[in-house]
């Protein structure tokens, strides 16, 4: 950071950074440190004594089949959400980038899902997919599909993927549109003069030039699928049936709420923290070239 510091009131500077530092320390660093510390402890059944056990909680965690199941669920869910929300967002952005009438109107509608809370989006879809009364559920049942997300794990997974994708389309659409608009028209025109058809122009010129945006969005969407979908899962499936929609974050939430295994729950939190740190580091290291420190 270049030195632009111009004022020299040290006391004033400290007062100015104090609120943010205080809140960061009390509500971010202290709880995070607590989670790390607790992940090395084992508490007896009555909460009377605790023992320092090094990595035993982690080892135990990695011995439980449910944990691997949750890892698998998280990756499967994230893969589907990231792929479909990016693909749909890109398709819509490419279409909206053409010089056509009414783009403003389309855009106004397409940004709506961003404003809808994940839990509320979930409710909208539960209503359509509720067996017996939901419009889509009934259509599926008429066509011989025994749709029931409460009993069928695959159906539950499909439901939360649809909600998460719907919720995330706006975001990807807006960023892809901004990315497309920053590609110089002259490059594309030059390719057209050379005789490249639109599809070829897209895959050989536009898509590669868009790759910084795509990469950024992949990281952001993974973060979204991992962490911001808790409201969707809690409202639609509560992780069920039989843990088939219980992602890592949701499992931390469930296990912590049950409150029986503080150390194990803390160990899960720490693993998640490491995942966030890696994702954030990738995002800033490879994507954000504009931030210089």
């Amino acid at each position: 950071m270049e030195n632009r510091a111009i004022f020299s009131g040290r006391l004033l500077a400290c007062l100015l950074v104090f609120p943010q530092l205080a809140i960061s320390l009390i509500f971010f660093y202290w709880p995070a440190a607590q989670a790390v510390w607790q992940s090395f402890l084992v508490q007896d059944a009555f909460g009377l004594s605790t023992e320092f056990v090094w990595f035993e909680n982690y080892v135990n965690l990695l011995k439980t089949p449910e944990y691997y199941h949750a890892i698998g669920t998280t990756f499967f869910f994230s893969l589907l959400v990231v792929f479909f929300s990016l693909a749909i967002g890109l398709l819509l952005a490419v279409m909206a980038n053409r010089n056509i009438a009414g783009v403003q109107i389309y855009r106004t509608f397409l940004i709506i899902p961003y404003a809808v809370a994940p839990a509320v989006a979930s409710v909208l879809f539960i209503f359509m997919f509720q067996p017996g009364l939901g419009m889509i559920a009934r259509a599926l049942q008429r066509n011989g599909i025994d749709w029931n997300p409460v009993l069928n794990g695959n159906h539950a997974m499909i439901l939360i993927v649809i909600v998460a994708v719907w919720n995330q389309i706006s975001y990807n659409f807006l960023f892809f549109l901004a990315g497309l608009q920053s590609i110089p028209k002259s490059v594309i025109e030059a390719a057209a003069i050379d005789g490249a058809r639109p599809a070829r122009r897209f895959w050989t010129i536009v898509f590669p030039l868009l790759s910084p945006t795509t990469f950024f969005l992949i990281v952001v969407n993974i973060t979204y699928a991992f962490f911001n979908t808790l409201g969707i899962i809690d409202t639609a499936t509560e992780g069920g049936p039989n843990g088939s929609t219980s992602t890592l974050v949701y499992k931390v939430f469930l296990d912590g709420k049950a409150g029986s295994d503080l150390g194990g729950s803390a160990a899960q939190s720490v693993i998640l923290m490491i995942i966030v740190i890696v994702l954030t580091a990738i995002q800033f290291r490879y994507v954000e070239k504009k931030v210089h420190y």
Partner: protein
Amino acid sequence: MVEHRRFGNLLPHLVLIAGVIVVAFPVYLAIIASTHDNTVIANGQMPLYPGSHAFETYWNTIVSGTGRTTREPVGSMLLSSFVMAVGIALGKIAISIISAYAIVFFNFPFRMATFWTIFITLMLPVEVRIFPTYKITSDLHMLDSYSGLILPLIASATATLLFRQFFMTVPKELVEASKMDGAGPIRFFFDTLLPLSVTNIAALFVILFIYGWNQYLWPLLITTRDDMQTIVIGIKKIIDVKDALTEWSVAMATAVLAMLPPVAVVVLLQRLFVKGLIETEK
């Protein structure tokens, strides 16, 4: 854009119309359901046009509650959500604009350490430190209070980064001129920097208002009293997927009310929203 297209722009319009239908249909259906009687919805015979029970449904939802349930009317949830969203948005803006100001314009010990301390909070989202944060909030006696809903969420590295980026583009001459006129740091902040930041503040407010309004996990944990609940978590108690007796018209009216403020903000302040979104995330 370059060559002549035989079918004009038919394809983009078709794709975009399909996109708009996918995006808008669930919302439309919720609005329609909130105007019909429960029994019509429960039969699965709900038509696609509005019914005649809108007033009754919204009255029951917002003000009185319904006969069978003992739930809190949604009116008080709307208030909680509103206080929380505005509190988070203003709080984040206030503390991050002053800390960014100190980091960019002041020389003080541990300046870089301070910057990094703030920056690293990006890596500690509430989801990964839920229960320890809950415990601290409870130790500070902030459960079921607005300060408990707001304070733990208002430290924001993104807002600080945004203001920092923007402050670094402010020409040095401006500061020097202002100093020459005899302005101290506080006057410079209020007379020069704040007016320059208005658009950024407004764009950030739009994003943070939506962020605050749509919070789920945190309010779910720290509100135990019904009258402190926000609408986003209140809605879960109205629907019960496994219970056939869900009052869907009330649930959908609640969903509509929960969507209305953030959707209105995004649609009406579209330009600010897009600016805020693209800039805070970059």
